[in-house]
């Protein structure tokens, strides 16, 4: 069934972008494909212009200083066990509340004043989350943001791992965003040498058994990162590598570590290649011998992995599955894989190949939007402005996709079935959006601007017959055409 131009524009916005805002469908209806390409071609399309955000090194050092100060406070409190701080907190709360006003919810209760000891890891995390959300709300279409989210999930780290919370956002900016329209090999190298990844998958403390440090301390290898690079980041599970390849590769990347903040106030938290931890000697990975060249030994392996045909197929499959359908046609995967091989992993060319794929415009909207996409889509559709990112993050937690906190290194699932389970929770979130976050939105206008070109007659009728505007808005956000892409 051929789509009319508005329906095609709506499809482009939902399938490749973060959903329509008021005016978006009309803005790209004359050439939806061209608008997607134009967003990729815009200079600096993936960058975030916010100079207040910390680099991962600064963030790590700031978080370390904060935790250090907290430890000292606790020590001081222990040696002088008075009730002073509790009373102070009570007084502060009394000052902030109006006598007759109802007690504030725990989440909004004023925090007792803290001594000025820098920024907490959680605050850095929230600041990064806010900037990320703003970028998603401000994007014209959101194709570049969606690509960023895709690659960030492909190369996921978890903020729940020790040391990662304050640098999870910086990781996405420094390793993913910086390369999202560049070459796969560059993204791969940036990711695998980033402190967030080295901490998350334990490589920061992996020591070559025959290295200086290994001989001195009797500690050794951790294969975690090496295995996930082969299994998840490049070749794909059950492809061409063996356990010996994993072990050899793990040895090659020993010494890829993070400067401990306690030892180096200037460079703590930054990447370092530590030759004292590096396993000496030649290693063989997938039938290829790599002479010991220090840090470069591992970089060469990454370059070869990036150009391996299995990587091309793995990446092509994941992109097609994410953007187009849970079970993409083999011919589509092969076409994308060929593009990857032909362009030496040019990720912008891969994105363009997705847009050019006829399947992208012919497949039914069968995939449920991921919770993050759906929530951002709801905010974009209703024109809500977000001053506090926390309720949005709480909603994402509720729906099973907490930001930068995937359950495992393979990231959040990308299939319809996984997310269907959370449908009834989405209804509660939709209700909250309608009542609290976007109570001023006019459901009729939102419908016309964002859903009308692809809405069924039943959806139109259901929204029109709602008993109140807030109910209409909740139903709109829950409509199949708003849930699926």
């Amino acid at each position, binding site marked *: 069934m051929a789509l009319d131009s508005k329906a095609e524009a709506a499809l482009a916005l939902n399938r490749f972008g973060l959903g329509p805002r008021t005016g978006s469908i009309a803005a790209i209806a004359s050439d939806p494909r061209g608008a997607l390409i134009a967003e990729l071609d815009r200079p600096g399309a993936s960058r975030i212009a916010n100079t207040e955000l910390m680099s991962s090194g600064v963030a790590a050092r700031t978080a370390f200083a904060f935790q250090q100060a907290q430890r000292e406070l606790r020590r001081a409190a222990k040696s002088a066990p008075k009730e002073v701080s509790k009373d102070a907190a009570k007084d502060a709360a009394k000052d902030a509340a109006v006598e007759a006003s109802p007690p504030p919810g725990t989440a909004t209760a004023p925090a007792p004043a803290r001594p000025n000891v820098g920024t907490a890891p959680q605050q850095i995390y929230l600041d990064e989350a806010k900037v990320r959300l703003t970028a998603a709300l401000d994007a014209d279409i959101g194709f570049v943001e969606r690509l960023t989210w895709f690659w960030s999930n492909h190369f996921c780290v978890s903020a729940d791992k020790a040391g990662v919370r304050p640098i999870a956002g910086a990781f996405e900016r420094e390793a993913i965003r910086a390369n999202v329209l560049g070459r796969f090999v560059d993204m791969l190298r940036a990711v695998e040498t980033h402190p967030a990844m080295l901490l998350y998958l334990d490589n920061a403390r992996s020591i070559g058994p025959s290295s200086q440090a290994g001989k001195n301390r009797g500690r050794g290898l951790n294969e975690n990162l090496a295995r996930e690079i082969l299994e998840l980041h490049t070749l794909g599970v059950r492809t061409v590598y063996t356990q010996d390849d994993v072990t050899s590769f793990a040895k090659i990347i020993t010494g890829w570590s993070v400067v401990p903040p306690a030892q180096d106030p200037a460079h703590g938290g930054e990447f370092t290649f530590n030759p004292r931890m590096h396993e000496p000697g030649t290693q063989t990975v997938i039938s290829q011998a790599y002479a010991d060249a220090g840090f470069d030994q591992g970089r060469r392996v990454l370059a070869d992995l990036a150009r391996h045909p299995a990587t091309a197929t793995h990446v092509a499959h994941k992109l097609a599955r994410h953007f187009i359908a849970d079970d993409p046609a083999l011919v589509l995967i092969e076409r994308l894989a060929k593009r990857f091989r032909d362009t030496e992993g040019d990720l912008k060319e891969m994105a363009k190949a997705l847009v050019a794929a006829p399947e992208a415009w012919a497949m039914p909207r069968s995939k449920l939007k991921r919770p993050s996409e759906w929530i951002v889509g709801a905010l974009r559709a209703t024109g809500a402005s977000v001053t506090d990112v926390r*309720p949005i993050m709480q909603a994402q937690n509720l729906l099973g996709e907490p930001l930068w906190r995937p359950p495992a290194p393979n990231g959040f699932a990308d299939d319809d079935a996984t997310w269907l389970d959370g*449908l009834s929770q989405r209804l509660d979130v939709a209700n909250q959006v309608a009542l*609290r976050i976007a109570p001023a939105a006019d459901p009729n206008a939102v419908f016309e601007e964002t859903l009308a070109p692809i809405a069924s007659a039943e959806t139109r009728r259901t929204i029109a017959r709602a*008993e109140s505007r807030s109910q209409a808005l909740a139903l709109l956000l*829950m409509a199949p055409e708003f849930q699926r892409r």
Partner: protein
Amino acid sequence: MGPHAVTRRRLLLASGTLFAWAHLPKLALAEGRDPRLLVIVLRGALDGLAAVAPVGDPDWLALRGDKALTLEGKTPALALDKMFALNPAMPNLHRLYQAGAATIVHAAATAYRERSHFDGQDVLESGLARPGAVSTGWLNRALATLDPAGSANSTRASSRNAFAVGPIAPLVVRGSAPVLSWTPPRLPPASDDTLMRLLDLYRHTDPALARVLEERMGLAEIARAGGMEGGQQQRPVAAAQVRAFFAESAGTAAKFMARPDGPRIGALAFDGWDTHANEGALDGRLAALLGALDGAIAAIETNMGDAWRETAVAVITEFGRTARINGTEGTDHGTGTVAFLAGGALKGGRVLADWPGLKEANLHEKRDLKPTTDLRAVLKGLLRDHLRVDEAALASKVFPESSAVKPVAGLLA
């Protein structure tokens, strides 16, 4: 939490300015009174005949059959006078009625005669004669006339504040006079009604989503039984949450308005009255809602304390529902309905109705209770006699084009 926090902050910041409120409404104060008016909007269109039944009308039983409230049976309705009886889910209101602190208006409607919720709510809350683009409500404009800009001294510029409960002020209280607002920390989850509408949509358009929702909500059995007609009872948890939400919202409004320095005029809205299927006037959804409303009125009485003597609460809805029960044991959009007035300031214990009768020829368009009382007349009477809003302003500014609609006199004690 974001907008919620902003709302709270606004309230905390603005609470100092509420002190100026004690000086208004000036004319009423000059008489030694300090009146409070709280307006509760029921969105979705309340079935007035299920809330206040004309048990003395000879055509009543034939009209509603086994869905008719009567003075007999398992849950007898609460007698009001020879003609009318109150839904048994509202014992508090009945007690207030008997004590002369509640008045019921029946067969009432706004000037709106179509059947769209959004337009109907706009007309109800804007006070205009017809739907259209509106941004201010009659309650706010009434407030503005009490203290016209320029006459107030500048330190009391905020003394015209009204009070709204909810993330956004209901239209009725929006306008140039400043509005304070308070949002309950917990909003109710999506209602059963919203859930059923969504399920119905999914069943027609996306069976996979329908299946998930059915399984999740434990409704699969109902589906197999052949549609939504199975679920008579409100889920007890949901009913309790609605009850708690109504009571907390109304009770908090009363707490603020009771303060010597608090606002004197407030508004809030309760959703959920659009009972197309399984209305459940006696033991189902509508009974639960009316019970929750009754609890809200009780919470207002309690939290107003001494100020209850000077309080009037007006409970209004956009329109009524069909006189007859429809094919799904509910009622569709109609016209005439009830309004409740409660409060110590009222000369209550009366049902105000020019009863039109229930024979088919007497029904509006042969289907709805015919409206014989203009709701604006009641509201104008309240505003004039309770707050001392000028009658000319009522006819032009507050309810434009309503000079032919005379205020009902004698509502107040």
